[in-house]
């Protein structure tokens, strides 16, 4: 779906991308990084808005610079989209459909309207709120049965219901065979839908792989209420660094086995398991902080 090799791009003296390479073969991928990491630059190069200094970038096996037709099968949502304000939402979607060579325009518009709950298509875009504008732009990148959808900060400007609907729509469309490449720094949202992750920082890839593989790397978190088992805190302190956050005791380790073994030892020694004991894999945020070296 996406192939990027040794991509380099500088803006003056600032290196936006410094030899980025990755392959995305389908599903839902998240491009994660702080502001200025180079996420938007990758998307701009992939979609033909910016030209790389060196390296290669392909969408569906083709470069947009040599074959614009490839964009008929790719939906693109840029950060802070600006749909035309002089037409209605419906006319805008019709325009995108026509330019993409879509035949059944009415059906396509009806389909995306239902998915994104767009009940304001007949109104002029000039009167849309920020959230409505975001949703119509998302709709524009979903018309025409794309094989791949590239989104830069798709949940920006959306209220909680809008975010929920979008994430639900992505999950549904993924089931229909559409792949998504999403850039965001709102990690809890990406966590719900992404199968592949690319961590980017200062123009370089810190880590990439499947979500499942990454979660196995830890750090794993053991938490429980300190009031319920003060003796467990002392027991764990012998092997781990124990943090107390309010009433909650938190223990982090990159090895799930050592955590489980320690708890087993505690039980064997007659210890009582607290009712709220929880052992969970890392969140995307924790993973990112870990690979950046910002974890505690």
């Amino acid at each position, binding site marked *: 779906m996406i192939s990027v090799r040794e991509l380099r791009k500088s803006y003056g003296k600032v290196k936006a991308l410094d030899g980025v390479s990755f392959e995305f073969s389908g599903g839902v991928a998240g491009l994660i990084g702080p502001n200025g990491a180079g996420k938007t630059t990758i998307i701009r190069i992939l979609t033909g808005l910016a*030209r790389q200094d060196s390296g290669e970038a392909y969408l569906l096996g083709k470069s947009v610079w040599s074959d*614009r*037709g490839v*964009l008929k099968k790719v939906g693109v949502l840029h950060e802070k989209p600006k749909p035309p304000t002089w037409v209605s939402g419906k006319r805008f979607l019709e325009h*995108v459909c026509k*330019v*993409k060579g879509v035949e059944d325009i009415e059906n396509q518009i009806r389909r995306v309207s239902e998915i994104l709950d767009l009940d304001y298509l007949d109104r002029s875009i000039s009167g849309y709120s920020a959230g409505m504008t975001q949703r119509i732009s998302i709709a524009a990148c979903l018309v025409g049965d794309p094989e791949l959808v590239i989104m830069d900060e798709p949940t920006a400007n959306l209220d909680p219901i809008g975010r929920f609907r979008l994430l639900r729509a992505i999950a549904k469309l993924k089931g229909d065979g559409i792949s998504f490449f999403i850039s965001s720094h709102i990690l809890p949202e990406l966590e719900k839908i992404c199968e592949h992750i690319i961590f980017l920082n200062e123009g370089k890839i810190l880590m990439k792989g499947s979500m499942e593989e990454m979660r196995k790397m830890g750090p794993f978190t053991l938490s429980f209420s300190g009031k319920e088992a003060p003796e467990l805190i002392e027991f764990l302190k012998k092997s781990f660094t124990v943090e107390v956050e309010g009433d909650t005791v938190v223990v982090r380790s990159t090895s799930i086995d050592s955590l489980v073994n320690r708890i087993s030892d505690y039980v064997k020694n007659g210890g009582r398991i607290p009712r709220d004991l929880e052992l969970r894999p890392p969140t995307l945020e924790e993973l990112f902080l870990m690979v950046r070296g910002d974890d505690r």
Partner: protein
Amino acid sequence: MRKEFLEEIVWELSSVSRYPVLEILVGFFSFTAMLSFMGNMYTVESQCLRALEGKYWLHVELAWSIIVPQPIIIFLISAVLAATLFTRALEAGYLRDEFSLPVTRTSIFMAKFLAAFLLLFLSIITAVVVCLLFLDPAGWAITVLSPSMAKVIIFILTEIALPLSISTLLSVLGKNSFLSTISSFLLLMGLYFIARGTFLSWIIMPYTFEVITSPSNETIKLIAVKWGISLLLVGVSCYYFERRVEA
């Protein structure tokens, strides 16, 4: 690809027609064309003078039409249309999203330019046809269908092409729509006034009825030169638009 390109032109026309440009232009050109027909000529500035000779009351009433002759309006509208379609689209971010659709930048450029060209042409030709209807209702159909009308169309197209191509180049190069509009307009006005009475006077063609209906070789050569310059400017603008990567 042809269907997609046609849609681009229709889209750009809808973009510029969000302003009541067409209505204002048809109204204005109808008015000035009326004056020109009074002088049995096709351009306004000179026809107005001719039309007003010996008609002092009309001179007083319509003096502004001499101060604001038709070329100035074409310059102004050219500057506004080009800045709206190119610089403003870039400023507002519309161009960024347009560039991510499966159309070439050349197609987007040509669609924008043709939309502006069509809008200007349609407004002027509509005004001429409306005036013919008012001035000569009985012979209207014959005049509209006469070979002279084809020549009139060629003259109108020539007079639109040059200012619009100059404005387009400045708008494609510009980053601020207001500055693009002002600089295009001032440049066109400057060229126009410099040309008057100098070796550049060929820029302002004396469009008398005789010149239009029976153009001399000299006139045809001037039209060809104007088209050559216009096409060159359009080509340069398109080249730069295509290479304007960072939208």
